[in-house]
């Protein structure tokens, strides 16, 4: 049940679509070919003692973008399809910018003497999203670096958040703002949330027949007993199913975020967020460990992070 009608932000999204439709726009050749002085300077600044680049006459892979940087006096002729989108976002009040992702793949080393050129493709605009910094849009583009031929040397996916800066107020925000999605509790479920506050994942067990149960309840459906106890779960689990929430915005949350049904080795399932890993790294069967996150001064939620060996 989601709206199919136009909203004010659709203009931005339309422009983004138009720019994306331009496809890959190739820039001019770099001002300088790959060269030893710039490599030496870069290694020096990075504190990188690796001599092999200079010995072999190749560029360090992470230097790929450096070769096509525009320099101090950026010309207007090399505008990429990204610029119009960012300008439109500025004009719409989303003046803040923060980069969120930079993913580079290196196909082959760039050799000294080669003059690289960069091709830019605008690949998408997502928003508006409520973020910790303010409402904003995520803009993503892809850059491919070519040598003299048509085979790519390296490529990059780059994503920024363009946000509408919040007005400065007297008190620092976020940390003290009450988390809006508070769990209801009663005498049947309080033990679980008390456990979470102590960093424990408590699973209700029947004090008579021993059956484990989650979510908990007042009566054992197996033996009618109302004598309840709990076991503390090991805090491990695997993803049984999961979703990546993009839209609409959820109060107290930044999108996208992952929610999973987690299967515990104890034999019950529980729902929670998967954190500390990008959404596209989550899959059914992924191994997780429990972690506990304070959402405000009072609410702590059990969550799940990738299990590290």
């Amino acid at each position, binding site marked *: *049940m*989601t*709206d*199919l*009608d136009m909203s004010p932000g659709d203009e931005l999204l339309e422009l983004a679509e138009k720019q994306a439709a331009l496809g890959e726009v190739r820039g001019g050749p770099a001002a300088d070919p790959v060269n030893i002085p710039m490599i030496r300077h870069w290694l020096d600044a990075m504190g990188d003692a690796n001599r092999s680049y200079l010995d072999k006459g190749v560029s360090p892979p992470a230097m790929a973008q450096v070769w096509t940087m525009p320099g101090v006096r950026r010309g207007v002729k090399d505008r990429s399809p990204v610029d119009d989108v960012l300008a439109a976002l500025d004009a719409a009040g989303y003046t803040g910018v923060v980069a969120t992702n930079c993913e580079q793949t290196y196909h082959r080393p760039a050799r000294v003497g080669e003059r690289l050129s960069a091709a830019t493709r605008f690949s998408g605009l*997502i928003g508006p999203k409520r973020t910790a910094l303010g409402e904003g849009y995520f803009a993503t583009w892809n850059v491919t670096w070519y040598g003299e031929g048509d085979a790519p040397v390296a490529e990059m996916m780059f994503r920024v958040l363009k946000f509408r800066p919040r007005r400065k107020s007297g008190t620092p925000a976020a940390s003290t703002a009450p*988390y*809006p*999605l*508070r*769990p*209801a*509790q*009663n005498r*049947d*479920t309080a033990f679980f949330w008390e456990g979470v506050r102590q960093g424990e994942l408590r699973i209700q067990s029947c004090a008579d027949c021993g059956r484990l149960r*989650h*979510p908990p309840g007042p009566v054992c459906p197996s033996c009618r007993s109302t004598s309840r106890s709990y076991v503390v779960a090991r805090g491990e689990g695997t993803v*049984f*199913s*999961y*979703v*990546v*929430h*993009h*839209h*609409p*915005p*959820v*109060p*107290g*949350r930044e999108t*996208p*975020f992952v*929610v999973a*049904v987690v299967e515990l080795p104890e034999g*019950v*399932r*529980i*729902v*929670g*967020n998967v954190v500390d890993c990008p*959404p596209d790294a989550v899959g*059914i069967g992924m191994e997780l460990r429990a972690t506990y996150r304070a*959402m405000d001064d009072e*609410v702590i*939620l059990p*969550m799940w992070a990738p299990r590290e060996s």
Partner: protein
Amino acid sequence: MSGTRAAIAGIGATEFSKDSGRSELRLAAEAVFAALDDAGLDPSDVDGMVTFTQDTNQEIAVAREIGAGELTFFSRVEYGGGAACGTVAHAAMAVATGMARTVVCYRAFNERSGRRFGQPDARLGGQPTSQGLEMSWHVPFGLMTPAAWVAMFARRYMHVHGATSEDFGRVAVAMRRHAATNPAAWFYQRPITLEEHQASRWIVEPLRLFDCCQESDGAVALVVTSVERARDLRRSPAVVTAAAQGSAEGQMMMTSYYRDDMSGLPEMSVVGRRLWEMSGLKPRDVRTAILYDHFTPFVLAQLEELGFCGRGEAPGFVRDGGIELGGRLPVNPHGGQLGEAYIHGMNGIAEAVRQIRGTSANQVPGVEHVLVTAGTGVPTSGLILSAG
């Protein structure tokens, strides 16, 4: 076939829009008037009323507006869109037991211009009622929209049966194709392609925008009375051959994640088994079905739970055009909620009646029995309506 001895004798609706400009009570009254006119009955004939627990218009308020007199039966059906066919089931029971003679079932809302069910509501998990506590295992984690709740099942269905986003997309494409030739549909003359589906943005992965039904303002009303009386009224009756409600073991509202393999809809299986038992019919006796389609993946699961195909076979069934007009089982000839309007499943029951009468904009030939289902992912209900 003994049936329930009740029939739907009249159907009525407002226009379907994004902003009705009227109160929900006014919409309810307009739809009820239309249904009574269709049946050739007068408001003074109405002695029973049924609606959804979620409806904001009390039965007595609608009764006052339409000028009905005394009521001897009133009832509400729970669980969101799962109530739709349940309203007719309750009405049929009232008619069969003699509690009432003429029962009006209605659903009216400004779901697009007023309170939108697709928007997060932080109060969902706030109260320590049984439902608030149930929601509290999910809402604090931001799992709080219908699309998100359904997406969790959809991901598991994909994993277990190898289904893809395109399989879901084919449902949306079929519904929009049907709506394109139904003048009452919001998406009349606006079909979409599978490519457009695939290009539509993520709402909650693995659901895209076009996997989610639209939001609508509008109202639908149905008049239920005895089969004998219905035969004497203006329109040919749609006999309630079978009616059932269904809840399965470990049932929850949209979040039954703690049972079985999560790739099916056991509560719809409960409904389906009862419908086939009561009617003595088999899936092959049904020419067209109205399957609740607030989200595309559950249309696939319903085809399996109701026995129209085997488990895991629905993607293939749909890929072969099986649910389209002219296919093995045309589903939602009116375009469903994806294409016509989201009136919580009540507009689907009205379409089933038109198919029985032979008056649908997209009439399926040779219809004698229509199976109708209500909301999925929730405790639900279903009907088999027959000519007679």
